[in-house]
């Protein structure tokens, strides 16, 4: 049983490599291979600030953190209350405006997820993730 299971398992492990490689080739341009967020979708604090009124700031952190403090003029839009908050956010957007999404820090994923949903579900273009998130914004504010 033991050796047969190992032999069969190894065969399955090897077999699964074939379509995985094929899929990797197929998705090679859609996958960000080096970092979770492609460089073209990231924006620095200085760059985002330079856009002035041409950008809408979106806070993807939980409600309590947004209530405590946020980037001036930012709109709260997190995944916990996506269905309620999205309709409140959309009137702020107009074609040509850039959207800058941020969460707590470099390591958080909320901004990336919200940015993806804005692109996929709300069909918005020019959606960027703030590099370093709220932490970086605080540093630059000083």
């Amino acid at each position, binding site marked *: 049983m033991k050796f*047969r299971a190992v032999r069969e398992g190894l065969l399955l492990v090897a077999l*699964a490599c074939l*379509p995985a490689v094929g*899929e990797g080739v197929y998705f090679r341009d859609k996958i*960000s291979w080096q970092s*979770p967020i492609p460089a073209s979708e990231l924006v620095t604090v200085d760059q985002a600030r330079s856009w002035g009124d041409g950008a809408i700031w979106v806070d993807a952190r939980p409600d309590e953190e947004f209530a405590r403090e946020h980037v001036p003029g930012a709109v709260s839009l997190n995944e916990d209350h996506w269905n309620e908050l999205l309709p409140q956010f959309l009137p702020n957007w107009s074609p040509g405006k850039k959207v800058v999404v941020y969460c707590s820090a470099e390591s958080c994923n909320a901004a*990336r997820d919200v940015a993806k949903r804005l692109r996929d579900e709300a069909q918005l273009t020019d959606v960027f993730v703030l590099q370093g998130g709220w932490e970086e914004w605080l540093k630059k504010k000083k």
Partner: protein
Amino acid sequence: MFGVRCSAFSAAMKIVWRIVDLILGGIFVYAGVIKALDPVQFANDIDNYKMLSWFVTVRLALYLPWLEIFCGLALVFRFLYRGGLSILTALLAVFIGATVAAKLRGLDLTCGCFGHASKNWNFSTHLVLDLLILLAALVLFSRVWRTEKS
């Protein structure tokens, strides 16, 4: 008389085990297909666990769904059955461990195991479902083990 009853019972149990095979295999084929269709989303879901580098994560996101599909098919068609069952049991154990560890570290995450269908499941729902699947896999495993011995 007793012999007839006994063989009827064992035939019925064979059907039950076959149904368990099909359900378990079907679950993994479905879960694998959903993830293979959107590897970017699955990579993000793995990344939420904060356990692996992005380099490893993105490659796992391309590979794991296919491993699940192949192992699921192995259970459905009873071809390379033992290997498929062993891998699925190991995958489940690793996944449950990773989910519990993430919860203990205070991470609030979606597993993405079944695409959008599982997006809003809470931790308890995930855990109960995973443990049930693991239990089914272990029962099948012990059955194969006993059949081999006898």
